[in-house]
């Protein structure tokens, strides 16, 4: 389990993340929301060890994150960045296969997992294509398949961090992707996902964390966080919150 205790991050002299407490529960999807510059990606960077905390600490399975060796950590923690700079023409299947690097599960099992991960990300039909021929959204799904393959099938001690996995996707794939993420969490892993779309967050996340100016403004169940007052306070946006007519989760409409 990945936990943060009183986590603070400095960028220069500025505190960009202040006193964040967080525990990613197995089987749960935690959504992180907030305006641009609220510290969402900074939080993700701190949780995966890219940024070192000025105060507080991050633990993985009860041990400080920095004590984990590369491969052992990679078997437990996978990270999907906002965008990737891969500029070499690997076949899509080979890109996803890189997710299996930390494991020694053998070619046959790896190929099977790559197939399942591609299927989960709805990118199975791309497997033989060259990565460079793909559109931005297709590339995003391929990288999702790669990080899913890294943790597949997903267990209670494993954590997946996703930074805006739907930013380049069409409406259908925004939903299929988050459905895949949900299913992955239901297989046991803990998932944290940064999102911009409040309605996607309402529908697919078990809990939400609303960040504002580096601080946790609100946290809890979607129905507790996605209310008019906190959203007005954080985003400066006046909204109506209704109930989804079929599913019952909050539905946010700008006024």
């Amino acid at each position, binding site marked *: 389990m990945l936990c943060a205790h009183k986590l603070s991050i400095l960028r220069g002299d500025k505190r960009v993340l202040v006193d964040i407490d967080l525990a990613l529960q197995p089987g749960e999807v935690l959504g992180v929301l907030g305006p641009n510059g609220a510290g969402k990606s900074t939080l993700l960077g701190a949780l995966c060890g890219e940024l070192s905390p000025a105060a507080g600490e991050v633990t993985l399975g009860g041990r400080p994150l920095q004590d984990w060796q590369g491969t052992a950590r990679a078997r437990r923690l996978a990270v999907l960045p906002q965008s990737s700079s891969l500029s070499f*023409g690997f076949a899509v299947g080979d890109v996803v296969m890189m997710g299996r*690097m930390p494991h020694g599960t053998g070619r046959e099992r790896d190929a099977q997992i790559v197939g399942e991960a591609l299927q989960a990300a709805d990118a199975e039909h791309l497997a033989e*294509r060259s990565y460079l021929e793909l559109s931005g959204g297709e590339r995003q799904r391929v990288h999702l398949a790669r990080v899913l393959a890294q943790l597949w099938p997903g267990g209670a001690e494993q954590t997946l961090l996703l930074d805006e996995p739907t930013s380049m996707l069409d409406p259908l794939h925004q939903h299929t992707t988050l459905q895949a993420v949900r299913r992955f969490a239901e297989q046991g892993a803990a998932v944290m996902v940064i999102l911009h779309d409040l309605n996607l967050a309402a529908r697919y996340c078990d809990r939400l964390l609303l960040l504002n100016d580096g601080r946790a403004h609100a946290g809890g169940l979607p129905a507790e966080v996605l209310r008019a007052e906190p959203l007005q306070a954080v985003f400066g946006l006046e909204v109506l919150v209704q109930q989804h007519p079929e599913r019952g989760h909050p539905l946010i409409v700008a006024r």
Partner: protein
Amino acid sequence: MKAAISPRSLFVALGLLLAFALWLSLALGPVSLPLGDTLQAVLRLAGVPLAADGLQQAELIVGQIRMPRTLLGLAVGAVLALCGVAMQGLFRNPLADPGLIGVSSGAALGAAVAIVGGAAMGGMPEVFAPYLLSLCAFLGGLVVTALVYRLGRHNGQTSVTTMLLAGIALNALAFACIGLFTYLADDATLRTLTFWNLGSLNGASYARLWPLLLVTLAVALWLPRRAQALNALLLGESEARHLGVAVERLKRELVFCTALGVGAAVAAAGMIGFIGLVVPHLVRLLVGPDHRVLLPASALAGASLLLLADLFARLILAPAELPIGIVTALIGAPFFLYLLLRGRT
């Protein structure tokens, strides 16, 4: 840019190409030897007891002249191509060149110090001269590369971008110093310096060969062990780290291998450009970017192409010889432009 042919067929084709290049390199020259004689001479040199009837001349030519030269070409071509792959992986750019981190210009500066400094001290003893030149070139390459690497480091992290820019600055500085030595040199020294900078496999000897062979072997055995990590590095540094790759150590190893490999190659044969740039690129077009195939295939292709370029260099103006650096640049530069323009459409 997906695989145009399977790795297996590529390795077969490259194996045949290398065998062909080796045969031509051993058989052709001022005295052309028939295939049978060449083969028998090689076997006798390798210690196979064959009848020596009428083979003395072939054995002498192959053993004393063409074999060391061929081995030198083989090693230089292979190690330059391998280091090219390492640098293109490090910079995550298919158009990167080993010269970027200053190893070539550093080696050239070392050589200039040895040539001009040696001449100024009244010339060195004949037996000593080639070793000093190679040693100075090798050390020059190591020192400048170490400096570039050091400048790229900050807070325990190596910034590849800073290294690239530091490399540009130090390359310029090294060439300015070479210019200074050129200015100070007398006519005879100037000629030596110029020809050294154009590269040549001429004057290969077993004594100067073995350090390069050892380095080439080490690089050729080491880099493929990092093939998977190099693949992951192409995704990005943090992505590679999240996949369990020790990225800082990998970068250090890549820089070290290149400093050693290119340094030794330049020390043994002078400046030979474009092999490290063009060969990996070419191989990538054929089989894709997977380093598990790219590294060994580039070594084979680099060795073959350098041997063929050397053959061209020594046959085209025979009995005179064209410096091989001119040949590789004449072929390599237009090819590089072709790749550049092709990528633009």
